[in-house]
């Protein structure tokens, strides 16, 4: 019997496998395919202060070993979430973590404050790294003083587990990790999508309506692994690894690099049952390696200089 349980701040996850915000809807979309209760946690869709229609089409295009998206935080707003979605998803036998976004610090704080009152939401993930909205989002995640300011402001109103999702679109991601740790974050999750673009040479036009979008999928995994490793070596708070995880081996690599838990995103589009396969695969790996506790994998990377 191996232990798969991990802790993110005060939050205990039954296993380290969670779903990335924006890739798993509210969980309900995947109910036909897997037992959601098997997941360590579900990070639901990015939620803002008021309704957002999102960006024009096309919002997605396939790229080499991945995809670009520019959904633009389409959601119905925090009040709709609380009155219409929360009642439906709170009976899931796993943690629901809401990804929080906004254009202004005031909006971020308002959303976090409202979510703080929801008994069955034990944590939020502060999204300061969305590359697809003009205001807010990545602006906060790529300017250190803004990252500190928004994290500090939310910490004042939010007293449960606060995870900050970091942008890879910076020179030194560990500087941002240290900054939000200092501002009161309980954990960091990384990486959000890498800013990219695709061009239609025939039409000599960009493929996405917004010209640029966020790159996800296996194409970004090496970058994500490197960043997780850097951040793990820079902060004391737990790191949640994200970026192109397609199978258990990928997830284990992130844990070896220093991730306490992982989020699976784009892979759900290709295999809606991938999360459960990853959980089983991690367990098999631990048994095979004679490791009794998954926590022993975290940062266990052996480097010989």
């Amino acid at each position, binding site marked *: 019997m191996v232990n798969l349980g991990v802790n993110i701040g005060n939050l205990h996850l039954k296993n380290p496998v969670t779903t990335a915000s924006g890739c798993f809807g509210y969980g309900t979309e995947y109910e036909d395919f897997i037992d959601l209760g098997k997941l360590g946690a579900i990070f639901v869709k990015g939620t803002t202060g008021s309704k957002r229609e999102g960006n024009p*089409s096309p919002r997605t295009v396939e790229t*080499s070993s991945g995809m670009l998206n520019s959904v633009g935080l389409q959601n119905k707003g925090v009040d709709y979430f609380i009155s219409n979605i929360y009642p439906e998803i709170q009976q899931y036998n796993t943690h629901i973590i809401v990804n929080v976004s906004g254009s202004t610090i005031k909006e971020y704080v308002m959303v976090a404050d409202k979510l703080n009152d929801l008994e069955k939401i034990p944590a939020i993930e502060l999204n300061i790294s969305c590359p697809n909205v003009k205001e807010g989002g990545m602006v906060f995640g790529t300017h250190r003083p803004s990252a500190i300011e928004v994290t500090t402001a939310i910490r004042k109103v939010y007293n449960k587990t606060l995870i900050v999702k970091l942008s890879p679109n910076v020179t030194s991601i560990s500087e941002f990790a240290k900054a939000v740790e200092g501002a009161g974050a309980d954990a960091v999750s990384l990486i959000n999508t890498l800013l990219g673009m695709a061009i239609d040479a025939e039409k000599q036009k960009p493929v996405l309506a917004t010209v640029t979008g966020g790159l996800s999928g296996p194409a970004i995994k090496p970058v994500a692994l490197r960043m997780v490793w850097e951040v793990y070596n820079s902060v004391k708070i737990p790191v949640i690894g994200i970026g192109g995880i397609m199978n258990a081996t990928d997830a284990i690599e992130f844990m070896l690099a220093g991730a306490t838990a992982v989020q699976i995103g784009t892979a759900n589009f290709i295999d809606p049952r991938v999360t459960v396969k990853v959980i089983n695969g991690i367990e098999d790996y631990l048994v095979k390696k004679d490791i009794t506790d998954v926590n022993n994998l975290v940062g266990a990377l052996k480097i010989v200089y």
Partner: protein
Amino acid sequence: MKKFIHDFQIISNRRINEDYFVLSLSGIQPLPEIRPGQFVQVRVDNSQNTFLRRPFSVYDVNYKQSILYLLIQIVGEGTKVLSELKSGEVLNLVYPLGNSFSLPDGKKVLIIGGGVGVAPLMLLGRWLREQKMEPVFLFGYRNSGLLVDIDLFTGFGKVHIATDDGSAGEKGVVTQHSFLHNVPGDISMVYTCGPEVMMKAVALWAENNGIPCEVSLETYMACGIGACLCCAQETVHGISHVCTDGPVFNSKELVW
């Protein structure tokens, strides 16, 4: 409707012409209900540059033998790989996805398709006949070499054809077909699937004639199940998603 993920075994890969082929896929018994207009998401293995699943309309279903048919056009590497699959090989499907065509108010309906857009119209024709409706098909192609299973469609209703070069049926685009100049007054619904420019012309014709029109849209998709919100389509109600609110829309709802 409950969605499934299943492996299907290829029974046959029938080449229609240089660009089109029909895969016959043997699934679990019994197959879940698949409504006309719904689609499947196909995982394309052994294709290095095909990362996401590919959405295809269900062409036809044989429930007795648990066979599902897909009509596919070769447009890129993924569909090329699919076109080379052999019987016995396995294909993984997420299905049935999306909404479906609705039942008309009256008996007589018009089904207008162009190119590979005829794909969802076979199951539609079959279903309408089962509901005792009387569909008439009007199909447009670039040339006679692209005609698909006209004999099968004829089993469900009369088929009129237009080709760009006049090599089959009338010469010209389908929306200029003489049938539309003299259409019976009791048509209660127009269904259409094909190139967007054709569907827009069909929708306009239907609106001008006071007939409701349902169009089946195609777009880039990622998840196919309403999770990623990538397949956005502007409608009079705001942003809709082709994978869950569609692929079938009432033409009057679309802002296009």
